[in-house]
Structure formats: C-alpha cells, structure tokens
C-alpha cells in the first residue's frame, strides 16, 4: 500500500489537477476546486501546455443546455440556490442534472442552518425531509445507472447525512472509480473509514490521488508516522511547496504531540500563505498548550482582522479567551463558530471542554456528543464524555467512554490511567492494576500511573509488589524531575514501613529520613524512626504491622476520595490539549 510512487508523473499530475479544477469549478464544487488549484500552484515549476486544457470541452448536450447552466451557476454564485434549481429542472446532461440536484441540496442545507435554533441540542427530525426526497430521487437514478461520478458523490453525501454509512461508502467507492479527480469524494470517504483493514479492503482506483487520500486517512486514524512517511516521500518527488501538504504535516506533528515541530510547520505555513485561516484553529491549540500567550493573542487578532465570521477564527478567539480563563466568552465564540458550521468538529469538542471548566456537565455532554456525531474518531470528545460521567458518578458509562477513547489512541497513557481509575472506583482492582501497569509501560505522560499502581498493590496487601512499584515511582520521579510531594512522601513512608517490617533497618531508616523531608507525615515518620531505633536496640524484629496497615489503609482511602472529587477539573489536566511531557 505504501506506495507506488511511480505513478507520480508530475506532468500527468499537473494536467489532472487542471482538469479537476475545471470540472469541479464548473460544478461549483468550490472546495475541491480550491484544493486542486492549490496543489496545482505548488507544481508551478512543471510546464504544461495549457491550450488544450483550458479550451471548452463541452459535449453536444451541454451546448444545448449551455444557457441554462450558465444562468443557473450565476444564480448559484449569488447564493440563490432555489432559483438556480428552477432553471435547471429540465436539464438532461449529467452536468446539468448534478447542478440541479446540488442546488436543491445546498438550498435546503442553507435553510436548515438558517432555521436552526441557537440552543444546542439534537437535530430536529423534520429537517431531514429534503434529504429523504433527494435520496429517493437519486436512488431511482442510481438503480437505472444514470449517475455520473459527481452525482454519485452527491448521492453518497446524502446517504451519509442520513446515517446510512455502509451504503454511502459503497457509493463513494463507485464514484471514485468513475471520477477519481474529485477530491471531495476522497475526503468524504476518508471520514467513514474506521480502521486500517477497512482502508486496505476498499476497491479503490489506483490513482495518484489515492496516496494523498491514504495519508489523510492515516492522520485521521492517528497513524501519524505512516502519514508523515507518505508526505515526506511526496516532498522528495518534487511537490515541496504545497500548502496542503505542509498543513497536513503540521497536523500530524500536532497529533503526535510533537509540539515544537508542529509549531515550526505552522510558522512556515503562515509565511507561505499569510492570510490562510484553515487549520489555524489547530495552530491555536498548540499555542494554548504551550501557553504562548502573546503568540496566541497575535494569531487571534490577525485571524479576526482577516475574517471575523469564519469557524477557524472563532475557534482561535475561543482558545484565546480560554487561555485567559474567560470561559463564558470562549463558549460564546465556539457557539458562534458552530452557528457558522454546525458540523465543525473541533468547536464542539472545545466547547465541551469550556463547559467542563464552567462545571456545566449537561451542556458539556451535549457538546461532546455532538462532536462524536460529527466524527466518531475524536478521542478527546470520548475522553471528555468519560470525565463528565465520572462527575455524574455513572461509573460504567464513564468506563465505556474512556475505553472508546483508549481504543482510538491505544498508546496514550492518559486514557489508560483514566480507565484504571474508573475500574478502581468499581472495585475492579485487578483490571485497574492492569491498566496502570499498561499506562506506565506505554510511557506515562502525567506520571501518575506508577503511584496509582503502587497504592493499589498496597491496598491489596501485595507488599512486595507495592514496594517495587513505589521504588520504581521514586526512580522515575527522580529521573524526570517531576514532583508530587504527597505521593513521594507516601512512597518513602511505605518503603520505610516495608523495610522495617522486613527487618532491613538501614533501608528503613534511609527511607524514613527521606520521608521526613516532607512536612505532612512528620509525626508518623518520627514514630517510625523511633521504632527503628527500638528495633535496632532490641535487634529482635517485632511485628508491628497492625498499626502500619491501619495507617496505610486510611491513607489509601483518603487518596481515593481525593480522586473522586473532580480533580480532573483543574484546567491543565482536564483539557486534552496536550501539556508537554
């Protein structure tokens, strides 16, 4: 799958892109047209003969319908979609028919957005009437095999909107086999793919666009390294200055939490294309995580100056306010961005985070749920749902959502730790232990897995395991230089007691000494030290573990209780905007 880059004959690519742009823009598929043009621009060093490409290659039927189509497209450009549809009614040519159906679709979608209420909530059922009637019309045509690649694309979009995912996927594949040059189809298909096996099993045409498609799917599936591999190969092939590819690379680094490289990529992107707003919301996420306030402020002002009413701008501003802890304002901006485009995933998730900050759990749940509706692969939304249900004390739900998040990002320790905590609350300690262990083995970001594991061992009276885990925790803590006074003091205290119990008085003393550096347990430490002294003098090990166990038990439960309270609400740990390791 990786690649047959040999099909990347730049001359062919360039020719294809010009054709694609012409076809798409004639059909008013403006985003695909823009994409083709951008990529074509990045290939400006490739010289092609424009003469045959630019000339009008219209079929005979099209000429008959020429007037209708140009009239309708003019209305379409003026956003008078119903009017466009009216004049296209009787068009017989595939292009005319596509424009007709597309105008109806856009008109209804626009109406739907205009009529949508300000409150966020489940979509109104009646508003899908038009999609149903479009589906019926298109399915009749499809049964008669009268649809071309573009109409199939539209059919697929309608099916997807109606949640008939399986059918939609088949249609998109069919559309691609007929019309591989339409990037929109690739993009729609990309959002439907749930894993690598599915990607490999699709009967897609082997076209150079497929590489870009696969890369995009990899990014969506969080297979960022694979995606980067493809992009780097492409750069070697000579497509170096593409803003599209650069932005995708930046997103990939962002997903990999390689913040610095991502920031570099974004700065470069801004240099190449200073007025670009796409992906700037992701850039703002990065700046937020790095807490680069001035940069974020600058970005926010700049975006605002370019275009206030863009989803990306609203998200950037929302992030800016969030960083300034003005969460109400942040919510306002995320809501505005959703008003502009209710299917804008990032805004839903970010709004969920803001609601969490505002302790408005039910609104947060709504927002996260919408995010999942838009894209089921948004692990942050799943994770957020887990958090909200944790607060609502619905442990099984919480467990389920964390589990979903963890499936989407198998190697992210935060999800696994969260899972472990959820199991712990359900008293499924064995499972919890497994989770914590797994979390530390994939590389713990927050450094809490080990201590939690240790405490669990302690709670289960698995003394040796507990001691092992505590000492490993101390090791790690020392290596990484992360501090958590309570945890460390507890670790030392446990070790002290453990050694004492085992008669290793020196070690016990040592640990107790370390423990004494922390103020909380000073009295207990003194007791331990005293006991060590006694033991040393008596030189007969005495079993005094009863008291120790008591204290341990109480400490453990204290600790757990603390965990129950929404500590995850503290801004840093709540937001999944990747704090730097």
């Amino acid at each position, binding site marked *: 799958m990786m690649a047959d880059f040999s099909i990347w004959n730049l001359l062919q690519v360039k020719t294809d892109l010009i054709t694609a742009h012409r076809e798409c823009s004639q059909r008013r598929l403006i985003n695909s047209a823009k994409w083709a043009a951008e990529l074509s621009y990045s290939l400006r060093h490739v010289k092609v003969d424009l003469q045959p490409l630019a000339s009008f290659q219209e079929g005979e039927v099209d000429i008959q319908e020429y007037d209708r189509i140009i009239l309708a497209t003019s209305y379409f450009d003026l956003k008078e979609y119903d009017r466009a549809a009216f004049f296209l009614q009787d068009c017989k040519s595939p292009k005319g028919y596509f424009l007709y159906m597309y105008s109806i679709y856009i008109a209804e979608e626009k109406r739907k957005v205009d009529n949508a209420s300000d409150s966020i909530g489940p979509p109104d059922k009646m508003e899908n009437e038009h999609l149903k009637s479009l589906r019926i019309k298109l399915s009749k045509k499809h049964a008669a095999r009268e649809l071309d690649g573009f109409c199939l694309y539209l059919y697929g979009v309608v099916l997807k909107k109606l*949640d008939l995912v399986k059918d939609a996927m088949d249609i998109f594949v069919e559309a691609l086999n007929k019309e591989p040059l339409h990037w929109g189809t690739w993009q729609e298909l990309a959002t439907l793919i749930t894993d690598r096996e599915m990607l490999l099993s699709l009967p897609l045409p082997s076209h150079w666009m497929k590489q870009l498609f696969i890369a995009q799917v990899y990014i969506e599936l969080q297979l960022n390294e694979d995606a980067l591999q493809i992009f780097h190969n492409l750069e070697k092939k000579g497509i170096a200055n593409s803003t599209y590819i650069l932005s995708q690379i930046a997103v990939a680094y962002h997903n990999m939490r390689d913040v610095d490289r991502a920031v570099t990529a974004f700065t470069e992107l801004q240099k190449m294309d200073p007025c670009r707003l796409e992906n700037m919301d992701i850039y703002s996420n990065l700046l937020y995580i790095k807490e680069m306030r001035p940069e974020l402020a600058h970005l926010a002002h700049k975006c605002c100056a370019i275009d206030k009413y863009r989803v990306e701008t609203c998200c950037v501003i929302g992030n800016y306010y969030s960083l300034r802890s003005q969460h109400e304002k942040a919510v306002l901006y995320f809501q505005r961005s959703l008003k502009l485009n209710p299917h804008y995933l990032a805004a839903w998730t970010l709004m969920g985070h803001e609601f969490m900050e505002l302790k408005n759990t039910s609104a947060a749940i709504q927002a996260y749920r919408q995010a999942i509706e838009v894209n089921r692969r948004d692990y942050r939304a799943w994770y957020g749902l887990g958090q909200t249900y944790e607060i609502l004390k619905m442990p099984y739900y919480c467990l389920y959502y964390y589990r979903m998040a963890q499936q989407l990002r198998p190697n992210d320790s935060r999800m696994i730790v969260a899972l472990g905590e959820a199991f712990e609350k359900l008293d499924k300690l064995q499972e919890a232990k*497994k989770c914590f262990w797994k979390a530390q083995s994939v590389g713990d970001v927050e450094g809490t897995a080990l201590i939690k594991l240790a405490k669990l061992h302690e709670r289960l009276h698995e003394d*040796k395991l507990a001691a092992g885990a505590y000492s490993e925790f101390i090791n790690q803590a*020392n290596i990484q230089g992360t501090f958590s006074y309570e945890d460390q003091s507890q670790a030392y205290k446990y070790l002290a007691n453990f050694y004492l119990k085992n008669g290793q008085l020196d070690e016990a003393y040592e640990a107790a000494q*370390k423990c004494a550096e922390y103020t909380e347990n000073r009295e207990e430490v003194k007791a331990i030290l005293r006991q060590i002294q006694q033991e040393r003098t008596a030189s007969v090990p005495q079993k005094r573990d009863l008291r120790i166990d008591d204290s341990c038990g109480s400490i453990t439960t204290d600790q757990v209780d603390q965990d129950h309270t929404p500590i995850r609400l503290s801004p840093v740990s709540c937001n999944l905007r990747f704090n730097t390791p």
Partner: protein
Amino acid sequence: MNSMAGERERETEIMHGINLVRLRERVRTYIDKHHYESALFWADKLVSLSDGAVEDVYWYAQTLYLTHQYHRASHLIRSKNLDKTQLSCRFLAAKCHYECKEWQEALNILDLVENNTVSQLAPSNSFSVTRSVNELEKDPHTKELESSINLLRGKVYEAMDNRNLAMECFREALRQDVYCFEAFDFLVNHHMLSAQEEQELIQSLHFTTQCPKEEVEFLKYLYNSRLKKYDKPKDFHIPSPFSCLSGNLDLVVNLAERHYYNCDFRECFNITSRVLEKDPYNSLCLPLHIAVLVELKRSNALFYLAHKLVDMYPDKPVSWFAVGCYYLLIKKNDPTRRYLSKATTLDRLYGPAWLAFGHSFAEENEHDQAMAAYFTASQLMKGCHLPVLYIGLEYGLTNNPKLAERFFTQALSIAPEDPFVLHEMGVIAFTNQEWVQAEHYFKDALAKVQAFSKEVMVEKWEPLLNNLGHTCRKLKKYEEALEYHQQSLVLEPQNPSTYSAIGFVHALMGDNVKAVDYFHKALSIRRDDAFSTTMLGNVIEALMTELSPCKDEPDTIPAFPIATKIDTSSSATESQNGSSSLEDASDIIKEVEMEGAD
C-alpha cells in the same frame, strides 16, 4: 324528451296562422342558449295555442323547472294528470320535488305511476310518448328514461338515508343503461359497494347488447379505471388501444389516485399539480390534491388553495373540506371540526370530511368521539374499509384488542388484499403474543407491497418492516430481525426507535459493543427514551465486565524489581515549606538487598 322531438317532424301544425312547429323550435333554441325566461314565455303561449298538447305542456313544465319554479311545474303536470300517463312527465314532476328536497313526495309520484302501469291508461294520441309497454320495451329512448327514473329514485332513497334501496336503484339504472355514468359514479364515489361487488356489477352489465362492439372494451376500461383504487397496490398502465387517452385529465387523476394509495405522495403531488395547472378547479382532482398536500405537510399551499376555493365555491363541500384539512394539518382541532362539519352539512354523504373529522378527535386521543365519527363514515361508505379500519385502530389504542380485531376482520372482508389492514391484523396478533400469526400477517402485507414496487419502497412502510423485525426477534430469528430493521432504516433513516430495536437485537445476540453503539444513536436523537436508557445502562455494564480492561494489556502484571536504590540526588525535592531541617539524607545511598519479588 328526445322521443318527442323525434316524432315532431312528422306533422306540421298550424294554429291561427301560427306555425307551432317553428314556435316549438324557437323554444328549444332558447333553452339551448340558456334564455330560460324567453323559452318560458313562448312555451306558455304554445300550451294555449295547441290547447294543451302533451308535448307543449311537457316543455312548458320543463322551462318552469329550468327557471327553478319547481312547485309550479309539478302542479302543472299533476293538474293535467300527465304524471300518471306520461313517463317523461312523471319523471319531471318527481325531479321537481327532488329539487325541493321533498323526498317523500317525489317517491310518491314515482311509485304511484308504477302501480297503475302507464301503458294501460295511455290514451294513445298523436304523440308517441305514450306507446304501449310492448313497444316501450324495444325503444331504447324509453329504456333510457326508465334508467333515469331509477337513477332519480336512487338519489331520493340515498337522500332519505335508505342506502340499500338506493344502491339497488343505481344498479338497476346502470343495468338499463350502461352509459349512465351518473349511477356508476354514485355507486363508486359514495363507496356503496365493496371491491368484489364492484367487479360483479361490471360483469353483470349488458355491454354487448347495449353498445356497439367497438365501444365495449372502451367502456369497460373506463369504468375499471374508476374502480377501487386503494384495496391493494396495483400496477397501472393505460392499455395500448387507449393510449390516445393518456392525456385525458380524468385518467391522469385516476393514475394519481393510485399513486396516492400506493403512498407515493410525491409522484401523486407532481401529477395533481400538473392537472390543476391545466384545469384549476378540476373537481375530481381537488380532494386528492388536498389530501396529498396534507400528507406532504404543505400547509402554505393548502392555505392558499382553501382560500381560493371558499371564495369561488362556498357552497361546495370540497371547499370547506380543504379549510378543515388545513386546520387539521396545523393541528388546530377546534376550527378543524367546525369547518369539517360545515362540509358535512353541505353534503351529508361527503365521506372524506367525516373521516377527517374523526382524525381530528383521534389526534387529541378523544377515542370515543373519533369512533363516533368513523362509525358515521362507515355507514355512509359501506363499501369502504377505511372507516372500519380506523374504528379498529381506535379500539386498539384503547386497549381493546378483541373489538379491534373484529373490526379489522370486517375491514379485511371488504378489502381482503389491503396491506394496511393485514398490517393491523399483524399488530393485533403481536399484542396477543401470537408471534407466528403476526409474522404471517406481516409477511403477507410485505408481499403485497413488494409485489407492486420491488426496487423502491415508500417510507410509509417503515413500521411494517420494523414490526416484522420485532416479530422475528420474538421468534428468536435475530439475523432476520436485523435484516428487516436495516431495511426500515433505509426507508426512514435516523429513526430512534429503529436504532433502539437494532440495539436490542444485538444485545440479545450478545453483541454488546454494537448494542451500546445503537442505543447511543437512539438516545442521541431521542433523549428521553426510557427503554434505551435502561438498556444502555445494562448493556454497558455487561460490556465492561466482559471486556478486557484496555487494549492489549498484559495478562499478569510483571512486578518491578524492588531492589532499588533510593536515588536521593533528588534533594531537588525540597519540602514545600523549605524547612528541610532534618538530618541530611543525601549521603544515605545504599543498595538495599531484597528477595527477588515475583
């Protein structure tokens, strides 16, 4: 009437130098031109001139009738005893009383003559109107007249609420004259016959004797196209010999009506809109168009149409029916009922209005009143199964499955092949927990639906597929149940109850992952769904106990070596308050030996 006209030319009569024939012709011309007053004036003069010739009296009465002077006309005929002697005069007199809504009087006139058969009293004078019965039998004109009399008698009976006799009369009228569309229309439009009876009627008509050979098929086709359209979905093609008729609005409307009963409302709407463009007040098309506007929820279009209709035809029930439907559509039930009862007062026999009247009650869960309305409708439309079906539905809704079933059975006896009725029977069987029986009914209905539209089913059948799914689930045929639910999802995407049904099946099959997924989908659309909420809770719990804690976690946890050196180079861990005044621990670096923990 024509009979007289036919004989007239034999003799030319001249009275007092006035050519009566010419004068009579003048009267007729005026009538043709709708100058009734002039016709009346000259007809009156003719009676005097001819000294009360039967023909002239008849035409005088006719002009009186045309100028709405019904009693005068009747009196004229009866004072001359013509109602007893002349068939046509008898008819006219009765018709006059019918117009005045004096049903009994009209009947009396018709019956009276029947008893003293005309022929014996007939003083056979110069006019052929009064020929002997034997001759009459052969004369097609008289036969037609008899048919008219039967038609009138039927109308009177119907007005007197004696529907059985009325039906007999209409049937008789049609038998006597197969071209008598009015009688046919009464029978069909007022739903007097069931589908089977209609077929039998058509069979029993004397097409071959009464019309020329080439018209037999033509007539049969035209009549058949009017017959019951709703009892089962059918195909509709205009047969090739009559393809020239394809533009005939009547036939086009019939086609639209079939689309309507097949629940293809959009197609029906397309056709009716086209028809109304050509013929804006097509009376056949209007009720259909109104119904389809209601189905498609085009309240604005309906509002405008109703307004126009009320302005133009305030005395037609269809106008007020439209208004009532508009209010029904926007769910304002009080005005709905007000305007629908206005429609029914204008024409008591207006079935659709009664049904809509019932719907307006049903909408508010006023089951008793709804049923009352449906009962009235069922009495008015004996041959229509819809009122009975609705009564059954209401009984079903009021938890009375026994009675419901009885009415459904009755509906089924009227329309044995209607998938809707079969579906309801299935529902009743389902609620009685007779799963096999229910499956049988549902599959039967599905077969009927699919027989007509194989590739594209209409959304209306989504409940049928879902119910089949439920039944299959009860019968533990889970795969099949899923199949049906998926199909219904195609017809009606994003239906929360379908999602939760699919989730339930998955849960029963033990596929908790998918079950959770579908319950989530259901709840995302309908948040207060108690069933899905409970199920989701249970299924998630089950799922989480059966699932491994996280993806590819170890089976057993390897232990960390406890043998650690306590790395105290971390005296970076200054205590928070900086008062680390205890003994310096930095030199306590020791290897601690421990038993290898395993």
